[in-house]
């Protein structure tokens, strides 16, 4: 199975603090990889390095075999990588539908064609389909800022999928979401994964969510991977328990 994402010996230091201290892993096409670890273990920093938000101190990131270390986030996105944010990042002033169209428009044609082309960049149908899939259709014309937290989370995830990405990195998607919505979210993610063969990497604190969604899990502590395996293996691993209890 081909690796969609390859991370080789990634390091990121802030002054004397080694937030990410030599992390290497592969993500295979179509799998859902979970990354867990106690607070401060470097999960978010790792994401930000992969996604171009931060420049790694050293190491390499490859997408489909192509080196992308340090590329700008917008260029990475156009290569087929998408993300959701831990802190909600929808566009509150735009309507839900507009948010989705925005999420996909930069992949339609060139900048000039977007200026002279259709107002919706040809994405109305796709946006409606996405709304239907996430069961947000009744909210299509509402201002995104007026949605409930859980609904905004769904919108955030929906936006990450508008451009039909190869790889989606989800940063704590379950944070602050109530139980019913959580089940819904997991259900939608699994559906997309099966239907589109989309590859996910998920950072999460919610153990139950991660264990039930992911096929493989990495455990990070103090910037290094201390364990790797299926959810069952991880749950039984003494090193993992120690890393969490030692907090």
């Amino acid at each position, binding site marked *: 199975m081909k690796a969609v994402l390859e991370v080789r010996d990634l390091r990121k230091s802030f002054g004397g603090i080694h937030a990410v201290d030599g992390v290497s892993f592969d993500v295979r096409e179509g799998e859902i990889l979970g990354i867990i670890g106690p607070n401060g273990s470097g999960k978010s920093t790792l994401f930000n390095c992969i996604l*171009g*938000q*931060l*420049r790694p101190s050293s190491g390499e990131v490859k997408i489909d075999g192509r080196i992308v270390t340090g590329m*700008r*986030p917008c260029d990475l996105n156009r290569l087929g990588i998408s993300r959701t944010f831990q802190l909600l990042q929808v566009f509150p002033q735009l309507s839900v539908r507009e948010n989705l169209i925005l999420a996909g428009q930069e992949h339609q044609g060139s900048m000039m064609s977007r200026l002279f082309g259709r107002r919706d960049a040809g994405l109305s149908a796709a946006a409606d389909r996405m709304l239907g899939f996430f069961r947000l259709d009744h909210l299509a014309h509402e201002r995104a800022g007026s949605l409930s937290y859980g609904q905004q989370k769904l919108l955030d995830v929906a936006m990450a999928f508008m451009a039909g990405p190869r790889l989606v990195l989800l940063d704590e998607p379950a944070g602050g979401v109530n139980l019913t919505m959580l089940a819904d979210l997991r259900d939608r993610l699994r559906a997309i994964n099966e239907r589109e063969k989309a590859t996910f990497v998920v950072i999460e604190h919610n153990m139950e969510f991660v264990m039930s969604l992911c096929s493989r899990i990495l455990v990070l502590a103090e910037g290094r991977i201390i364990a790797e395996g299926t959810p069952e293996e991880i749950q039984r691993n003494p090193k993992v328990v120690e890393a969490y209890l030692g907090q």
Partner: protein
Amino acid sequence: MADIFQLLIAGLATGAIYALVAIGFTLLWQTSQTINFAQGEFVMLPAFLILAAMNIAELPFWLAILAGLAAALLILGAMFKKLLVDPMLRHGVLPLVIATIAFGLFLKESVKEFYSAEAQPFPSLVPAGNLSIAGAVISLQDVAILIVAVVAVGALQLFLSHTRTGRAMQATAQNPTVARILGIAVERMILYTFLINAALVTLASLLITPVYLAKFSNGETLGLAAFIAAIVGGFNQVRGAIAGGLLLGLVDNFAAAYLSAQYRGAIPLFVLIAVILFRPQGLLGRAEERTV
């Protein structure tokens, strides 16, 4: 050779003043994300405060200086922070930038209306006169400026690195979040940087106004020079502000002497563009983390 030496001293003297103004500017940016577009007017104002103390309150010069300093610390330090910066920071950097622009305009027009639109003479701390060193004629003013600036910056550096408060301020400048976690009274440290800036601009005002006379419009060129000096040196370093200021002063003086004097005011622009194109983090700056 003597000419070059003269220009060198004059350039360093100008540069020292730019450095003083740029240091305060950089400190404000580092600790509280404040881009103070009124920094030029901040340098213009203390001279007028001192003049007012002398001509209206009829205080002797040295007492007027103290009064002016006190007023500057209050208005440009504490009040600026509490009444303008703190309320605006909540809304983001852009509104704050605009607010400081408006504040600069306010100060400039107030001086113009309430004091005078005409250039006013300003007493010098140093008697007018020249030194003759190896055939070069150097004004006492320039020498005095250099000495005072070096002493002031040296004192500031000592304060920042050898006192507890100073080190706490440095920590706050480097990373306010971490500083807070370490138990540093971050708000108070930020207030101190505002006060230090007020003191620095007062000093710069004292040094430069005797030369250029006190005029409400002084802020424009000085402000621009300070911004460029800070960026050229490396926006995130105090050492950078010093280096940038001195460099700009030197370039300014040499260019005015050997190239067109008419375009002297445009020199900061070319230096800025050159730095941005070839070394965007500034001469002494660290390569910035990208956020977008």
